[in-house]
């Protein structure tokens, strides 16, 4: 993993969290929409919070697609959930809202889960498998896969 790739994963997290919160703030301002009042949808789109929220979510989608081009779905997925953690931390330390014990537990679980995934290889299909095949002594264990991964990144000779 290079610095660029961590920046992309960071982008996934920040865009998802900020886009979702601006969109929900804007939708609360415009009020509920229903299928019977589709003109209200247009009014919602003209709300600046909603418009910026949609732009940020487009940024999320672009960074998500870039990340999926070089990493497993099961590797990128947890990164998107770090956005929830970010939102809770903003709620507590910027907006000075009360964050319940259960939510702190949720933050701990998500952070732990993301730490678990980040410690392993980001890609376990195609290229990683090919790298494994090139090594005559490589077996199918996770350990050899990590070695192959590190070889690709140039960590190991």
């Amino acid at each position, binding site marked *: 993993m290079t610095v*660029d*790739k961590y920046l992309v994963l960071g982008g996934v997290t920040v865009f998802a969290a900020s886009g979702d919160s601006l969109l929900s703030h804007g939708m609360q301002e415009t009020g*509920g929409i*229903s299928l019977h009042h589709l003109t209200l949808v247009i009014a919602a789109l003209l709300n600046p919070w909603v418009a910026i929220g949609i732009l940020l979510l487009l940024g999320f989608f672009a960074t*998500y*697609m*870039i990340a*999926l*081009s*070089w990493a*497993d*779905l*099961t*590797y990128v*997925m*947890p990164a998107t*959930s770090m956005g*929830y*953690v970010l939102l*809770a931390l903003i709620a507590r330390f910027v907006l000075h809202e009360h964050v319940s014990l*259960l*939510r702190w*537990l*949720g*933050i*701990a*679980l*998500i*952070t*732990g*889960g*993301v730490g*678990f*995934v980040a*410690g*392993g290889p980001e890609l*376990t*299909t*195609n290229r990683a498998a090919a790298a494994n095949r090139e090594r005559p002594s490589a077996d199918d264990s*996770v350990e050899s*896969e990590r070695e192959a991964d590190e070889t690709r990144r140039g960590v190991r000779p």
Partner: protein
Amino acid sequence: MRTLYTWGAILAIVLASVVGDILLSRAMKQVGDVGELWKRSGLIPVLRATLGNPNFLFGLVATAMAFFSMLFGLSWGDVSLVAPAAASLTFIGNAVAAKIFLRERVDQRRWIAVSLVAAGVALLAG
């Protein structure tokens, strides 16, 4: 009856999200490392390869369906049930589907991670 509708919507969101994520992930693996392609030949070929990929287009349709199911779900059920239930079940569904359809090696490390994150999301949004 309302509960049934709500859980029906949650199921629809989860199914559409999982199908969408799997197709989008497969499409991007076919396109290849976007950063390298961009450096080699610029933005236009990246956009052409991505937007011209059938898996990408079907994945986009499925993701849009998930979004609309979410709108319906939210109009029938409580946000504090629908959003975390859908997010958490999508995590688990994605892990199972990624193993079967994308042949990702979902080892013990990833299973633990997926379970922790799914539980955490359920707690946070609840």
